[in-house]
């Protein structure tokens, strides 16, 4: 393809639903756009459109991914520019169609067309391993697998990693979401290290279970780059996507500092110390 050959198509996937794929996609896209990258977010969950609401762009949709694939409109007409970031665009999914409306071949054609104009093409993958997943991974160079430190999410992540490998995707990284350092410290949650050890793929980053994520979703404003913990964690992940070496321990150290103080008080209250 012509254009910039530096562009990357990254699929954000998980297998299990509800672990934060869409939130991660929205925030990684926002973070990369903040870093002056040209970014397009593609909602590949046909029939269950969500990324538009998380991005706060739901009122501006005219055309969608299926319209582009079927030739009802030109790509440019379907792309929604995020007014907050001049380099950030969304290609929304269709709400009234289903997964079978698009084939993997059409997805490859679509992502190749987007490579011409963007540095990063982030694909928000639907949950499951059926056609929606097959479509989303078809055009991807690289994958970020989102999981939470729970048995069910890790099991599905493991299955997804196997399927990604079968699809020839070699660059697979792990994002551990909804981490609660206080619970890890009390021995009631698997640690980030545990999850990495079990899934045996490189870690791109971890994000704390932060109520600011819920607030930002309520408002339709991704929080990547703002001074919340999750906002900072997502920005760090963006820097790692860009190839920068940002130590993972930064995040947990900050966490453990605060938690240690609160644990100190909790323990002394109980008289255990």
């Amino acid at each position, binding site marked *: 393809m012509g254009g910039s050959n530096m562009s990357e198509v990254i699929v954000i996937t998980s297998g299990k639903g509800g672990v934060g794929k869409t939130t991660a996609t929205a925030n990684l896209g926002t973070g990369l756009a903040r870093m002056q990258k040209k970014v397009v977010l593609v909602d590949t969950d046909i029939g269950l459109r969500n990324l538009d609401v998380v991005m706060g762009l739901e009122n501006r949709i005219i055309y969608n991914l299926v319209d582009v694939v079927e030739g009802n409109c030109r790509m440019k007409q379907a792309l929604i520019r995020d007014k907050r970031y001049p380099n950030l665009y969304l290609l929304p999914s269709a709400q009234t169609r289903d997964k079978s409306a698009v084939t993997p071949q059409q997805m490859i054609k679509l992502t190749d067309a987007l490579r011409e104009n963007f540095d990063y093409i982030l694909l928000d993958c639907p949950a499951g391993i059926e056609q929606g997943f097959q479509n989303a991974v078809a055009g991807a160079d690289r994958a970020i697998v989102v999981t939470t430190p729970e*048995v069910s999410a890790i*099991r599905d992540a493991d*299955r997804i990693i*196997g*399927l990604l490998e079968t699809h020839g995707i070699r660059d697979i990284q792990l994002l551990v979401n909804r981490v609660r350092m206080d619970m*890890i410290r009390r*021995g*009631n949650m698997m*640690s980030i290290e545990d999850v990495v050890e*079990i899934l045996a793929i490189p870690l791109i980053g971890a994000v704390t279970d932060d109520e600011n994520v819920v607030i930002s979703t309520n408002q339709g404003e991704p929080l990547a780059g703002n001074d919340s913990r999750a906002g900072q964690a997502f920005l760090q992940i963006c820097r790692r996507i860009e190839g920068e070496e940002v130590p993972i321990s930064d995040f947990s150290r900050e966490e453990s500092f605060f938690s240690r103080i609160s644990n100190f008080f909790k323990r002394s209250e109980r008289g255990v110390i």
Partner: protein
Amino acid sequence: MMWFGRKEKEKSRTIAKERIQSTLLSDHTDCTPEILEQIEREIFQIVRRYFDIKPEELHVRLEIVKNQK
């Protein structure tokens, strides 16, 4: 009291880790946990011929080398 509390709390992370690891082993090998336990028991029977040990003194770790997913 304190010890009891600590132990209880330590447990759920450890339980989770053990459960996910045995589930994944069972997923990867396409083998039920019962069969995996059977393998462990049989290995113990063999090892016992050479060493005077109790079942809890033998830790069997089965590792499947890649591409079995």
